[in-house]
């Protein structure tokens, strides 16, 4: 093993981290503001991936089909989220938490079956867009261009989220609502609207994660299950409801995963979980401050 090999592995690992971050930031938002432990979050991610595949194959092999997928799939997922929030979730906010958890469990199953009905149980795959095909040389070793693209998009989303939650009125209200929902209503703000928008934003992020991951994995039923576990752990080690925590958690998870595979290929998968255990032993409430 040489240093450049390690570096390539690091870059590929980091780019996977970006997908994890985008999805877990959405989960963290919904958990922090609406207090919903959304087990169905992975389903939105899976639907995002399938939608992106469908949009791309519908448009055929044109240069802009990928961008259409990236733009449209999260929006459609967001609309689905909006519908579900209005029809189901909004009636349960005043009830105990278990109700919400059960609802998201049920939704995850229903959405999974829905995907099976629409797309079937076979694997799907799509190619990376032409201009992101191939690879660039990094210290003499090739790194796929698509991974570099992901490395760019992850921080871009982080900055966008930072901007929304620190500079816009919606974001400030959402932060206030995360801490004291009732008081936000008592200064004249319609909290339900803020909840709805936050939920949709979280779903859009899940859908975007799915759309971004679509060209580099097999799009299949069950991709939600493997992800949801990781995303929950990331959100927990980062600090519930903290976007930067989600970023940090994703970094830890993604990097230990890629190096685990490098160091001990057969058991590589246990490294990120070991990291989670270590983080939680040292900081049981997560690395960064939680809104809970």
């Amino acid at each position, binding site marked *: 093993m040489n240093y450049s090999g390690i570096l390539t592995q690091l870059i590929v690992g980091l780019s996977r981290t970006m997908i994890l971050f985008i999805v877990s930031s959405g989960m963290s938002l919904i958990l922090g503001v609406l207090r919903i432990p959304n087990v169905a979050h992975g389903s939105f991610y899976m639907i995002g991936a399938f939608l992106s595949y469908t949009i791309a194959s519908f448009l055929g092999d044109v240069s802009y089909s990928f961008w259409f997928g990236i733009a449209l799939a999260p929006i459609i997922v967001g609309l689905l989220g909006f519908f579900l929030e209005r029809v189901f979730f909004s009636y349960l906010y005043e009830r105990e938490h278990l109700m919400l958890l059960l609802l998201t469990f049920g939704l995850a199953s229903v959405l999974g079956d829905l995907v099976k009905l629409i797309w079937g149980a076979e694997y799907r795959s799509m190619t990376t867009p032409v201009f992101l095909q191939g690879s660039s040389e990094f210290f003499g070793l090739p790194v796929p261009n698509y991974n570099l693209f992901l490395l760019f998009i992850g921080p871009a989303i982080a900055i966008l989220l930072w901007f929304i939650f620190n500079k816009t*009125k919606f974001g400030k*209200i959402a932060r*206030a609502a*995360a*801490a004291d929902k009732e*008081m936000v*209503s*008592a*200064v*004249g703000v319609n909290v339900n609207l803020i909840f709805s928008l936050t939920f949709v934003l979280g779903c859009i992020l899940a859908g975007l994660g799915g759309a971004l991951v679509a060209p580099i994995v097999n799009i299949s039923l069950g991709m939600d299950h493997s992800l949801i576990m990781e995303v929950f752990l990331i959100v927990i080690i980062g600090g519930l409801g903290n976007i930067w925590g989600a970023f940090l958690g994703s970094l830890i998870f993604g990097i230990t995963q890629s190096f685990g595979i490098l160091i001990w290929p057969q058991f590589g998968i246990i490294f990120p979980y070991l990291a989670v255990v270590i983080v939680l032993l040292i900081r049981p409430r997560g690395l960064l401050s939680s809104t809970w």
Partner: protein
Amino acid sequence: MLEVKKMNTFYGKSHILFDVSLFIKEGEVVGLLGRNGAGKTTTMKSIAGLLTPKSGEILFHDESLIGKKPYEIVRRGICYVPDERRIFGDLTVEDNLEIVYKRNNEWTKDRVYNLFPQLKEISQRKAGLLSGGERAMLAIGRALMSSPKLLLLDEPTEGLAPIIVKMLEEQILELKKTGISILLSEQNIISSLKIIDRAYVIDNGKICFEGTVSELAQNEGVKRDHFLI
């Protein structure tokens, strides 16, 4: 402008308010006096829509407020300032003021800063880092940003140092001059007498006295029975 008739409010199964009735006229500052646990906060929360009375009527400009959500009540011109302040600690002082729903432009950030100059100096500070007095001012300033016709001030001076209490009382008197109506709850009957026009005394969830300030000042029985002085 506000009329509460025979209001009964419960916390879960426990009956807190018994047939509470009171009214507030335009421009009046009315005291809601009583000791800890007498039902002052419950009365205010019921008016503000944070609690829903089981029976009775709350009329604001002849419109019923029962069953309305807190934000709908704010938009009609009633804003509640909790005794625990409940400012948004994660946001800056300025953001605490800015996220409030503005009914009109009667009150602006600058006007709040004029009333509470101390807040202007710390406008960029995280509200979670404020002192008790600053929190109290911010909580009042935040409510004012909605340009309320009626302010529900729940023990604004509770837990503050005497010098801060004195300052805050002057600022509330300043506020009174603007013609806003206020329902002010207090445990300290002496200090409240300087501010209010009329008073209700509440004990064990029942209104047990109502009258003008001078009537209250002369009524030794009420003071002895309900305030332990």
